[in-house]
């Protein structure tokens, strides 16, 4: 709760360029509030959630799923505005960058 509130404040303040938030779970109402706050403050908000939330709807502009894979982790697009969801084939070695 406090984390969500803090993130909303930071997003809407216009001071932060990006806000990263790690959460176990949250509800739809808060996701919407965060999105509005991000638009108001012109900030990039990144919300990390466990994989089990992948089938819930979300107002986010872009949703990515990162899952384990062999030899490299797999990245797939869950939702992208104006695009088609699906797996992404990253260039080999993208994950070596450590970022």
């Amino acid at each position, binding site marked *: 709760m*406090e984390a969500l*509130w*803090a993130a909303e*404040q*930071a997003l*809407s*303040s*216009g*001071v*932060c*360029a990006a806000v990263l938030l790690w959460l176990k779970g949250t509800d739809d109402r808060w996701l919407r509030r965060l999105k509005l706050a991000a638009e*108001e*403050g*012109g*900030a*990039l908000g990144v919300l990390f959630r466990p994989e089990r939330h992948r089938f819930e709807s979300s107002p986010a502009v872009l949703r990515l799923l990162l899952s*384990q*894979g*062999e*030899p*490299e*982790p*797999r990245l797939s697009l869950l939702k992208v505005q104006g695009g088609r969801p699906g797996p992404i084939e990253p260039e080999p070695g993208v*994950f*070596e*960058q*450590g*970022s």
Partner: protein
Amino acid sequence: MPSRALESATADLFATAPCPAPAEAEPASPAPTSVPGLVPDALPSARRARVRAQPLWYAVVFPQLEALRGAAMLERLCLHALKFTPRVSIEIPNALLLEIRGSVKLFGSLETLHAGIDAAWHHLELEVSSATAPSTLAALWLARAGRRELIEDPSLLASRLAELPIGCTAWDGERLRALRALGVSRVGELLRLPRAGMARRFGAAAVLELDIALTRQAAPRRSFVPRERFRERFDFEMEVETSAYLQKALEPLVGRCARFLRERQAGVQTLELRLAHRAHARTRVRVGLASITSEQHRLTSVLSQKLSQLELAAPATSMELVSGPLQPLSAVSLDVFARQGGAGGGSDTAPQLVERLRARLGDEAVYGVRSVAEHRPEAAWQRVQELRLNAVLGQPRHEPPADRPRPVWLLDEPAQLLEEPELVEEGPERIESGWWDGKGVARDYYIVRRMGGARLWVFQERRSRRWFVHGVFA
């Protein structure tokens, strides 16, 4: 009566002064003791520039004041003095000191400025005596002795002060009696006493005061001392039970507080709201701000943040807003820069955001991170409480060299691995450091690949041969 001989004599005696005396460095300087008032313009220009860079103190003594309500009255008078310079300082019991170097140009000349300040006191029908000198004590001594002198050149101080009776130092009676018993009745004779003997007999403080008077020793003064606070009470017509109503009623109070601060070119870093109840102890709501401010909307937003969390123990009958000590508003520029860091259309500044977060989450919850030049990964960063965002960002960053990768995510505590990792990608990188603070480490770091593609930063403790995970790359 004062002469060149006297001046050179004092120069010798004070040759061991802790600070070099810049004025004495040029013995060739003329010391026209007969000219009262301003320094003649015949000074070499380099010298003049140096003189101009020194502080200039205007001292005013109110002889009648002692009998009156001393300190409180002085604080009032301070406010009048603030018209002339922001650096005003109170000298208990009955004097004020104004640093007027910066104001001389504004008023045309030192003579005009000095007369202007004097006129302010006359306007208040106060009996005063004033003087201007390059050091606080010299100005004060001259003013106490009732000599309206305007001295700009520190090298003239010794000769001008020499004539003053030692009573103008306002030292305690015992010390003055002892000095008079030695045949010392003028400051000039005081300056001629051997330093060591004087320090032994009258204390090092006495010698220090002489050094300060002659500008051989800097004398930091607490500048700008309007030790006022904003304090205003508001009685409710009916008892107030909800904090929402409190917030409404608070708005005009905060408005007046902000105006009060603006008028004094000051800001506050703390505020306190006191709520009185009919049959209950007072409720105090303390608010801290991330930086000194006088802006109404910042004060309001922090206060209402606190109030919204407040649960009233009993209905309030009145409230009182009390500001913390006033501080000069030097933080304004900070706000200006912080605003530039914004990415978008929000109207806040970084200190404001931090304040709001801290008001709700506690001071400890919001902190900055700073990198430290350290080999041990866990000691290579620090929390910083101060949120001078620009300063923190502007510091040189200690990037690890590219051939020694560091993970994005460092675990709080290394987690022990039960078995030796298999897929080693890189390593070892030996980190052995910290024996001096008792948290020494001797480790070999490897990057290993886990099933599923995760890359971990793993180390083996060299003494115990045990394996730990310390970070995650991706």
